[in-house]
């Protein structure tokens, strides 16, 4: 363990703390034995007591050892790390939303239900689907739900031989993992030399055992799948369903719709496209959209609207009444303890109100502009395997740089950390060697993009003149490169008190 005099050292909350150094948030409680038989009580509660000041300092310091969008540019491909507007959090924290118990009767929760309704209607229209469920907690959760819907749909039609899910080799890992959780077998489709799904390979792979083909458009290389209409037609002709992974939805709002492309099922990551804060890895929110023939299968509960008497209201949705519907015979059932990550639905709706249709169209246009601007600038000094108009993200490869200097994508990424930028996504998708996937998003200014380009240019030059310095990066952060091998070989996953 590092000595306390090392300013980089950070004790855990368990290392601080003294028995009895408690705060007074509540009245004192009586002895537990008065209420519960001693045999049912625990022997001791080995948790630390810490003063509020110590806790505040501890977590404030931890926050300072954490890099968020609020600190700097975060060009993580496939993650859409755009600015998280604070008004969204303020709206979600309103007591009428934050303190509303999920079991409150529907007529006392009309405001909350209306939030869900307005969000659901807007998303359905924006993406060309018949309906969305706001149940799933994340993209992967929605994927699972969609595949369960497909499984149930085919079972109802007596087509139980359909047990294969087709996934391009550029797909995010959750796609095949979700398929496996439904008992499907995964077929991986090789991409063609243009980086797109190969229509020829697809035709070979589809057949009477095809359940679902999972894709995203633009794909994870940031390229628009221009043959998407033929692809969906081919899969439908074989009797399969098309699933749209909405991770890249930031690239097509107001421009094209997955529903129009022929997708039957889709998810959105509102913690990507719709500014729900990432919070260090979650909580996310994964609305699940379906075409008309699959609406009955959506997870429960579903928000149902009906006309109500009386006039007034600023919008048509103000003239409806809402309730949660649980009794849906064809539904796959519930996917979570309660109805949705509702606080995030509030945030997403607030973001939609900040934009409207035109605003969202412009979001996608500027996201694509920013990505192409970076692409043409970076292409001057780093290999871009697909030198054509990209959408909201693009990939570069350090393969040649590695051959010439030994410097790899990993080293470029770590060097960026030293210059105050978050590194792009590394080594994904798998088909591009020494890959960095860059997605700037629309909330970054030209000055930020120019600064990033200059930093990366300088790093690549350093690779040629002094590669050793890059192998050592990062050097300005509180810790340097960590020993991942040791972490995996000798797992230490929790604090333990020292023997003395």
């Amino acid at each position, binding site marked *: 363990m590092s000595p306390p005099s090392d300013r980089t050292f950070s004790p855990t909350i368990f290392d601080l703390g003294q028995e009895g150094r408690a705060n007074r948030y509540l009245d004192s409680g009586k002895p537990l034995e008065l209420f519960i038989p001693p045999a049912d009580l625990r022997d001791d509660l080995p948790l630390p007591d810490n003063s509020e000041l110590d806790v505040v300092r501890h977590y404030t310091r931890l926050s300072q050892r954490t890099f968020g969008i609020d600190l700097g540019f975060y060009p993580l491909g496939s993650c859409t790390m755009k600015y998280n507007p604070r008004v969204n959090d303020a709206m979600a924290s309103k007591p009428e939303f934050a303190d509303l118990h999920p079991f409150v009767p529907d007529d006392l929760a009309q405001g909350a239900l209306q939030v869900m309704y307005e969000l659901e209607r807007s998303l359905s229209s924006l993406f060309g689907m018949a309906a969305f469920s706001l149940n799933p907690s994340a993209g992967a959760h929605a994927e699972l739900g969609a595949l369960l819907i497909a499984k149930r749909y085919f079972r109802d039609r007596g087509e139980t031989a359909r047990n294969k899910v087709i996934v391009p080799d550029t797909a995010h890992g959750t796609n095949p993992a979700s398929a496996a959780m439904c008992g499907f077998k995964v077929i991986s489709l090789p991409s063609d030399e243009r980086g797109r799904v190969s229509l020829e390979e697809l035709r070979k792979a589809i057949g009477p055992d095809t359940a679902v083909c999972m894709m995203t458009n633009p794909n994870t290389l940031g390229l628009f799948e221009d043959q998407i209409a033929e692809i969906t037609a081919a899969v439908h002709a074989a009797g399969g369903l098309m699933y749209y992974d909405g991770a890249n939805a930031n690239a097509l709002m107001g421009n094209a719709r997955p529903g129009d492309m022929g997708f039957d099922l889709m998810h959105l990551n509102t913690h990507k496209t719709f500014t729900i804060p990432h919070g260090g890895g979650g909580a996310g929110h994964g609305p699940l959209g379906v075409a008309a023939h699959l609406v009955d299968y959506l997870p429960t509960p579903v928000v149902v609207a009906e006309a109500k008497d009386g006039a007034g209201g600023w919008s048509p949705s103000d003239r409806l009444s809402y309730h949660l519907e649980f009794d849906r015979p064809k539904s796959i059932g519930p996917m979570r303890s309660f109805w949705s990550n509702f606080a995030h639905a509030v945030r997403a709706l607030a973001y939609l109100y900040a934009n409207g249709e035109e605003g969202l169209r412009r979001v996608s246009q500027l996201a694509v502009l920013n990505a192409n601007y970076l692409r043409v600038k970076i292409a001057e000094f780093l290999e871009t395997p697909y030198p054509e108009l990209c959408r909201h993200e693009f990939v570069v490869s350090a393969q040649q740089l590695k051959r010439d200097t030994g410097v790899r994508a990993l080293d470029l990424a770590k060097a960026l950390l030293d210059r105050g930028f978050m590194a792009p996504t590394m080594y994904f998708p798998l088909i591009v060697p020494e890959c960095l996937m860059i997605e700037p998003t629309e909330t970054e200014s030209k000055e930020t993009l120019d600064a990033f380009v200059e930093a990366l240019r300088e790093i690549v030059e350093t690779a040629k003149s002094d590669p050793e310095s890059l192998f050592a990066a990062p050097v300005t952060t509180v810790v340097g490169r960590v020993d*991942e091998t040791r972490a995996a*070989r000798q797992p230490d996953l929790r604090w333990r008190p020292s023997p003395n």
Partner: protein
Amino acid sequence: MAQPENLLYSKEHEWLKIDGDVATIGVTDYAQDSLGDIVYVELPKIGSSVAQFGNAGVIESVKAVSDLYSPISGEVVEVNAALESDPASVNKAPYDDGWLFKVRMSDSGETANLLGATEYAALAASS
């Protein structure tokens, strides 16, 4: 590290050493190098049956995971328990202390389906 001459090899980068009717199995130097630092090996259960080129377990490194196949059919009679606490020996001595499991062969004729040292060396070089 050159491939030991006295071993047989599979296309999945495993090696086989025969001693009577028992075969000792491990992964090659090429395999351990490609995977990187090995952190965990999931070995087959003693007493279970394995089929030639069938699934026998999993080998994990920090950043990757790879299926283990058995180069020969038979019954698993021993596994290298030391790997539980020291998976690194697969990296350090893949042909020696880093052995994985032993199989009592059900059909020694299956060795005809395997590669000799020279053939394997060519395969590894072209991978």
